[in-house]
């Protein structure tokens, strides 16, 4: 009995040793005046490490491989390239203008996927989906096809980000080309996480209150938090189901996400999330994304979206003109 417990402990210790092989140094985070770990500040999660490991890639790159990868990524994206024709050139210049330069770096530990479990770095296989969910996915795919062809029927053919309803503010938080900041503000019993894009604040109660009743559904779900030592653990459920676009096409009835925010040094947080949905994936999966404190001279500014969403009208007017000209 004792031996079994000891070996289980040994396995746990081994598992917690990071990939670099050094023993973990436990960082003692600063505390708020009321004694909670202090996560406050503006953090940035930009990285070019993909969510899923590219097929055939090794799991961790050497320093040299990482440098090569970052150099080639910078070259692929630079506005100074002139190949590929005018449209491609203009697109590169446009993206370069907006792109968060931190986006050009892979994670400091040189992983090739943000997913750390399963070990192959890939989203687990799907379970067989019901005919209704297959139909919903097919309808969504058809709308995407119309939009990508420049022929959206109406605004509902566009994605929620294009419609400025939600962008990277819906958990889990995944890095994107720009606006990767998150500002955390705490008061007793509350941790508020304000993503830069789009200007919402997720108010996470840590006072032990229950979740909303199951019938109340929100675009960003309903979050409850608790402290596990230095770690803020946030569980989110109650996502909306009527749009067919919940994260990775999961089922809102059974989808649950658990996020863990842990300060690992003075300037970074480990953001780890596990998603589970037995009616979508064969097993839960977990990703780890480093959040880095932004330069003290920087600020997070308001990200408006819908208020000046000229694009949505351009897309629709363009589609109507294309259809008129095709007749």
């Amino acid at each position, binding site marked *: 009995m004792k031996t079994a417990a000891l070996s289980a402990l040994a396995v746990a210790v081994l598992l917690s040793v990071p990939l670099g092989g050094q023993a973990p140094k436990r960082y003692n985070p600063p505390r708020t005046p009321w004694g909670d770990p202090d996560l*406050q500040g503006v953090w940035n999660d930009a990285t070019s490490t993909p969510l899923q490991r590219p097929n055939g890639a090794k799991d961790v790159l050497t320093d040299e491989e990482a440098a090569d990868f970052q150099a080639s990524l910078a070259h692929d994206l630079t506005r100074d390239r002139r190949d590929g024709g005018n449209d491609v050139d203009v697109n590169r210049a446009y993206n370069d203008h907006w792109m968060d330069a931190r986006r050009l770096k892979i994670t400091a530990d040189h992983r090739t996927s943000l997913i750390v479990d399963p070990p192959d770095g890939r989203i687990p296989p799907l379970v067989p989906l019901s005919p209704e969910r297959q139909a919903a996915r097919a309808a969504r795919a058809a709308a995407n096809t119309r939009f990508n062809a420049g022929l959206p029927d109406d605004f509902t053919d566009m994605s929620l980000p294009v419609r400025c309803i939600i962008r990277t503010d819906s958990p889990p938080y995944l890095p994107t080309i720009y606006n990767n900041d998150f500002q955390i503000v705490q008061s007793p019993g509350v941790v508020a996480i304000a993503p830069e894009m789009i200007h919402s604040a997720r108010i996470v109660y840590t006072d032990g209150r229950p979740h909303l009743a199951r019938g109340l559904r929100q675009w960003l779900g309903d979050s409850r938090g608790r402290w596990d030592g230095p770690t803020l653990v946030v569980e989110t459920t109650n996502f909306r189901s009527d749009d067919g676009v919940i994260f990775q096409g999961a089922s809102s009835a059974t989808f649950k996400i658990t996020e863990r925010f842990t300060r690992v040094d003075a300037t970074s947080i480990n953001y780890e999330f596990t998603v589970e949905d037995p009616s979508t994936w064969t097993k839960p999966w977990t990703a780890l994304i480093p959040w880095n404190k932004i330069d003290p001279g920087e600020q997070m500014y308001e990200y408006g979206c819908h*208020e000046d969403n000229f694009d949505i009208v351009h897309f629709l007017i363009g589609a109507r003109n294309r259809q008129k000209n095709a007749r």
Partner: protein
Amino acid sequence: MRVQRRLVLFSFAAAVLLGVALAVAQTPAYRPPHRGDGHPDLSGIWQAFVTANWDLQDHDAQPGLHPELDGAYGAGPGGQSIVEGGEIPYQPWALAKKNDNFAKRGTVDVSNDKTWHALGDPELKCYMPGVPRATYMPYPFQIVQGSNNTILMSYEFTSATRIVRMNWTQESPADAWMGWSRGRWEGDTLVVDVTGLREETWLDRAGDFHSDKLHVIERYTLTSPYHMQYEATLDDPKVYTRPWKISFPLYRRMEKNLQLLEFKCVPFTEELLYGRFRKPGTK
């Protein structure tokens, strides 16, 4: 000498008494508990119960924009002015524009980028409401008072937020829908200086408006554990003849486990804004 001294003492006593009386009359008797940093904690969910979102000034009850469709659902309640002195001191041209805004409050046209913002109440179009309108819309808002010189104000309407930077000197780097808020404590009152507001927001459904020169100074003062007095002074030399002030109480929402819910209104306004560009025959 003795007489004089008595007189002085008497005057002193009277002055003290008078001072106490004035203090009682002028400042709320309530002394809020202080947090570790020596300031009151304004954190919580608050809501105004004035009808200023329909009209800051005196207004009768009114029908909605489309009574033939909405009946009494669309109607608005009457209410008394929250403007000190009753009226907003508009320059003559600005009063004419306010009336024009009101006449066109329900009209939108987003077919041209250049005139995208020209028509319609921004609330109708689900825009972030700006300051001070966000405070007296008929939706709750939440204050999260951080311990790092940062106060988050999170509004239920369209999930608008703003960060109040305490004791901050940097000027607004760019205009924003919710402006640029810098805070400081004056005794137990939180004073927030707001600049950098986008000129397109309105102050109410009556077409009251401002320019990009609007400068708002807000004052938040707890008057009991459950009430907070809100004051805002609006200065805009392009639109008004002088600065003017509004004030009203905010009420702490007391329901057990109450939380802000989403009011993401973009889906509620897309048909109004974009429905006319739909492919014919697809709906």
